[in-house]
């Protein structure tokens, strides 16, 4: 390893331990056991700006108010539990660092939109998963199974790589204005997962999935707003995937 690299690493490691800052978290609270009305509540925290928003939520829950309710599990952007609206934009709380949010101003945190609010930052995920299940999100093949693996070229595998990354967090679907207005729309995440199979060279149900998405609540509802692409914490080019499905519907080639 070059000494330049060592020096750089050394310098980085010698940076002082982060200083704490005071930040205000303005959280949209809702608990129907207490009140039918949702309301904003401010919490002031002394916190390291390199921490995640999830760390701030934990600090509030563990140290200040145990009733604050949110979902989380892996805490590093893989499980998809903690999508929420942070400063007006859908993100994962565990992948958003406080320093990247302009912590001089109050940081707003609220539940994702378009799904029924159950408590604080928790929404009913069932309609979201139902839309996913409706697009046949599984490999369909016919004929006898081969004894070994099905062959697939690296290029064919690459064709749908982007959409295999989806973690079903709903950040995209709940950022879509069409979905907000009409919950019947399949939404970006379901289309992404249809894309993942439509463009898989091993799959034989592309036509069926396209017919499902040709529905009035299907892919044509997309108005190419790009909110979904911006919201995706996995960096999936969601809008592009939707466009590819639209094109496949017109050309019937995929």
């Amino acid at each position, binding site marked *: 390893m070059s000494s330049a*690299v060592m020096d750089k690493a*050394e310098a*980085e490691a010698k940076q002082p331990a982060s200083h704490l800052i005071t930040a205000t978290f303005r959280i949209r609270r809702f*608990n129907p056991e207490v009140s039918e009305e949702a309301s904003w509540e401010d919490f002031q925290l002394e916190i390291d700006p390199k921490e995640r928003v999830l760390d701030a939520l934990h600090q509030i829950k563990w140290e200040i108010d145990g009733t604050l309710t949110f979902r989380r599990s892996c805490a*590093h*952007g893989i499980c998809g539990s903690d999508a929420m609206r942070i400063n007006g934009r859908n993100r994962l709380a565990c992948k958003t660092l406080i320093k990247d949010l302009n912590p001089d101003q109050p940081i707003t945190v609220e539940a994702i939109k378009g799904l029924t609010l159950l408590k604080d930052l928790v929404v009913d995920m069932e309609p979201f998963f139902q839309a996913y299940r409706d697009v046949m999100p599984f490999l369909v093949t016919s004929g006898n199974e*081969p004894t070994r693996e099905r062959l697939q070229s690296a290029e064919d595998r690459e064709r749908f790589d982007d959409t295999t*990354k989806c973690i079903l967090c709903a950040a995209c679907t709940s950022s879509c204005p069409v979905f907000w207005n009409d919950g019947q729309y399949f939404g970006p995440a379901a289309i992404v997962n249809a894309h993942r199979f439509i463009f898989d060279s091993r799959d034989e149900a592309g036509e069926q999935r396209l017919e499902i998405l040709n529905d009035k609540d299907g892919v044509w509802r997309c108005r190419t707003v790009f909110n979904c692409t911006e919201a995706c914490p996995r960096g999936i080019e969601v809008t592009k995937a939707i466009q590819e499905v639209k094109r496949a519907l017109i050309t019937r080639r995929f």
Partner: protein
Amino acid sequence: MKIHKYDTIIVGAGGAGMRAAIESSKNSRTAVLTKLYPTRSHTGAAQGGMAAALANVEEDNWEWHTFDTIKGGDYLVDQDAAEILAKEAIDSVLDLEKMGLPFNRTPDGTIDQRRFGGHSRNHGEAPVRRSCYAADRTGHMILQTLYQNCVKQGVEFYNEFYVLDLLLTEKDGVRRTAGVVAYDLASGEIQVFRAKSVVFASGGNGKFFKVSSNAHTLTGDGQAAALRRGLPLEDMEFFQFHPTGIWKMGILLTEGARGEGGILRNRDGERFMETYAPVMKDLASRDVVSRAIYTEIREGRGCGADKDHVFLDLTHLPPEQLDAKLPDITEFARTYLGIEPYTDPIPIQPTAHYAMGGIPTNVEGEVLSDNTTPVPGLYAAGEVACVSVHGANRLGTNSLLDINVFGRRAGIAAAEYAGGAEFVELPEDPTRFVEDEVENLRDATGTERVVDIRRALQQTMDKNVMVFRSEQTLKEAVEQIGDLRKRYKNISVQDKGKRFNTDLLEALELGNLLDLAEVTAVSALARKESRGGHYREDFPDRDDVNFMRHTMAFREVGDDGTESIRLDYKPVVQTRYQPMERKY
């Protein structure tokens, strides 16, 4: 009280649970109860791959894989089980491919394979390409693929149902499986699920350490329920510390990074693993590498102002290779550390990763109530279980394999059992234990907080039960855990509501962690030798004469209500491999 009735109940919707459900639901009316939504499980965080001797890219066979697994586990592995694991690995991977899993491909279009720690050609000659992978997202792909196939088969799920108790009813002098009790997080209702067979697949318990790769939700709920019901836990002293967690955070950076050519370096830039493992170097088994890292740190060769970490160096690898093979972990370095892995080495330290121990089962997945006797109708698979295929130290890529091989086996066996069995009567007042627990916590007015006790538990575990242990540290841990258990009785929660009471949930989870931490420390104290992931500074050598045996820990409650851990032992199954000194 709502009582559901299914032939088979599966507890947990990670890899093992869903693999079991895919089998059992074909022949048995099955429901999966899961604390999280199915795709949230920590199987999804596994990165590097799944081992199978496909021999797609170079010569390999399952016998070599068997040997590596047994050697990797420092000969505490049950050799009959390891042989099944390695043999069935091949079909397991092929099954997943047929279910749709998008593996990386070779130029020929077959499943690509790469190197991983402890996997070797011909009994240790050199590293071998055995890990079948999908970039550094193999666990994610497995979890998605299994869920997709559950959707295809119409498997029934109860999402956000937290299983808090196992129901066993004595009949003809034998305790048999009657079902489970679950807490519906959304409503706060306690519900009974009667079943002929139950499969526990509820995952690990790594959250009793502070620096941990584990999800917040990995709190050993299945192990703790079994222990409370008088079932043993096997080999709980064996916990794996993964060498490369992100410094201070513990987030996993796959061993695949070293499989792709990444190198560990100390403050002088030295490739120190050459000293500790001349043949396998950075790809020695995880226990060996983790100890090497801490030895470097202890001897003053750690990096940074506090010399408390080392570097994972990927800077010599082409950016295209990092993008194609390790996209997620390089992004973790950028997101959480602000480091560019193309040009900068990544600060790492060992992170608590995997419980080798758990609920003892035989190779059919049947849970054992002692060294040999199965509990009729009860099964376990995955990290919650101890078959034991991992022995004293699990090889990387063998856990994604374990969940598929033994998840499948447990699912088949549970459905078969349900097909020929009658429902067992529920025990009297089946929800009493859970109701008491939940109500006591909700009504409690104690002065102790969950966060303080959990923090203290994690501190003592990190300090005393980590990579280096001794009688002194373990005694300290046992004593402190005992104190924390007393403090836990004086706990209270702020949220008194029914709906989505995660405050209450965390308190229940902490109770489980405390129980399991005690078993871990007590088991470790009694094992006066060093083997695999269990290293005793006061007994630095392996002692096959006295300790070539599995620990079986039981919880006992005396007439006066005092609780204690009783340790028993079980012989290791040895078939064709004689224990040898382990060198990499």
